[in-house]
């Protein structure tokens, strides 16, 4: 089959590789009909994530048709499914609590050591996202082996357009969980850093959860424009001073809840950020983290900090004092996708959530390297790239 493989920093290629097969009884194989490039993939593309190996197949946002099932899969050939990016067993303690991204059994035993050392505990497996998250081949491919297919993939009713439901695999639940973690109360003002796919879904979700005002922050005019369409007020951090603007816009109180949907590659030339860039390139510190610092400083006293953005290692100058002194609550985590998929599928079917607005580019899987380059270098216009095998 054809699949997009990582070969190094800014080097991804479509290679011909062996087709996947059923290996374990709960597996299924799907034929991919649509797959997307994610902001998280850019972290791999930019070489920020350790334990990558040349030839690793990327992609964790994908859907397709079931073409083969293992003896214990509950799926049927021919069904259309969206696959959650978190690989979770459904039967451990954490899955029982719907903390799917903390599943005990998603990672092969030998791949659990790195996270056990780095974080104290291994987490769920992830598709196409380095060997410390399992080394599973990802979905930017013609076919994918999907473990635990009896509990992960969600079956999509016939006749629904792929593009409407594809984002159930990651960014829609991620934006939704980000808003949920912000514990929004009616009348709240919520500030969202980053108007990428995650931030834009967080904006929509925050309104659905009762936020009175949402203030969206980015520097790409087009992305800010999309946030505005959903009713957000905007701050362009290149044009305006973010903290000062937020304070004036909230009458000196600060946002009741803040959401960091930027992550470890925050852009911008702020003093602390430049230091991070130097340290990141010399491996003194691993994560660039301006947005989370700014969010914590701006958040009102007793407010809530939600951090869907991905951080992998250590940051310094983390405003721990502000977190403590202001009595903030911080909630974060990889998304418990399986938990959110059914309700969000309903919301899509009922027209409560708009998903397709996000897609700016559709391409053949063969053109995936171009897609990465565009998504990386023209973020203003390129809001989401959807790849379809056989599109051309």
């Amino acid at each position, binding site marked *: 089959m054809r699949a997009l493989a990582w070969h190094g920093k800014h080097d991804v290629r479509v290679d011909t590789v*062996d*087709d*996947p*097969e*059923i*290996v*374990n*009884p*709960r597996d299924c194989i799907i034929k991919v009909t649509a797959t997307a490039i994610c902001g998280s993939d850019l972290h791999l593309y930019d070489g920020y994530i350790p334990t990558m190996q040349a030839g690793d197949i990327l992609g964790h946002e994908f859907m397709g048709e079931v073409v083969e099932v293992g003896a*214990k899969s509950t799926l049927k050939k021919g069904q259309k499914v969206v696959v959650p990016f978190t690989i979770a*067993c*459904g*039967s*451990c*303690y954490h899955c*029982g609590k719907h903390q799917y991204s903390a599943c*005990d*059994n*998603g*990672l*092969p*035993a*030998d*791949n*659990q*050591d790195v996270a*056990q050392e780095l974080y104290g505990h291994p987490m769920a*497996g992830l598709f196409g996202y380095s060997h410390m998250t*399992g*080394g*599973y*081949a990802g979905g930017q491919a013609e076919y994918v*082996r999907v*473990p*635990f297919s009896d509990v992960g993939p969600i079956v999509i009713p016939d006749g629904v357009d792929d593009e409407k439901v594809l984002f159930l695999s990651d960014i829609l639940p991620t934006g939704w969980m980000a808003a949920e973690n912000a514990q929004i109360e009616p009348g709240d003002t919520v500030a969202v850093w980053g108007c990428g796919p995650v931030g834009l879904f967080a904006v929509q979700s925050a309104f659905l959860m009762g936020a009175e005002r949402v203030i969206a922050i980015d520097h790409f005019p087009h992305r800010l424009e999309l946030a505005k369409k959903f009713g957000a007020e905007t701050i362009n951090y290149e044009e305006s001073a973010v903290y000062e603007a937020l304070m004036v816009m909230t009458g000196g109180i600060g946002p009741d809840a803040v959401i960091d949907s930027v992550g470890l590659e925050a852009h911008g030339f702020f003093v602390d950020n430049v230091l991070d860039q130097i340290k990141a390139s010399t491996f003194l510190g691993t994560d660039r983290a301006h947005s989370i610092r700014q969010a914590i400083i701006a958040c009102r006293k007793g407010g809530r900090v939600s951090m869907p953005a991905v951080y992998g290692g250590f940051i310094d100058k983390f405003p721990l004092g502000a977190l403590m002194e202001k009595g903030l609550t911080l909630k974060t985590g990889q998304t418990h996708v399986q938990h959110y998929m059914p309700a969000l599928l309903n919301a899509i079917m009922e027209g409560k959530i708009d998903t397709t607005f996000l897609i700016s580019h559709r391409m053949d899987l063969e053109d995936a390297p171009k897609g990465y380059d565009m998504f990386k270098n023209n973020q203003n216009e390129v809001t989401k790239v959807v790849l379809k095998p056989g599109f051309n």
Partner: protein
Amino acid sequence: MHDTKPHGDDAPPSTWKKRDAFAESGIPDGKGGSLVARAVTINRPVSEVFAYFRDFTNLPTFMENVERIDILDNKRSHWVVKAPAGKTVEWDAVVIEEASDRLIAWASEPGADVANSGQVEFRDAGARGTVVTATIAYDPPAGIVGKLIAKMFQREPAIQARRDLRRFKQLMETGEIATAAMNRKQHEEELA
């Protein structure tokens, strides 16, 4: 169970910084001076977890380096364990203590290629299932034999025990052992 007095805290002996803890480990007939302990909580009833483990012929399904275990009688078994260069090391082990749904303790018999002993405790953890704690004592090997054994245990018994317990948990909870292999050929290569 564990005598915690010399220390004054409740931490298990295997985690004590002073290694004279060994005598306190409660492992009967401890072999050698190294001690590792690993605990895992398995979301299944204790009777089921114990029964699967007590049938030693099941152990090779999740103990990566164990090629085969032959049952000699109710207490004694013969272990064949993979070593580098297609070789194997072998020993007879005897169950020296056993309490249904609670404990299995074993020791290798004289003449073993690698002297070892240990115990696996099973504890009913209510809604969380069963806590399985494996404590293994082994002769810290030296020289060529040491290298062989380090390789055999992948790096060291602590890591091997941890990985084996994770696989045991996966098998009991999910009915299979997680793998990222894309196809059966890759999977077989991993297991070899």
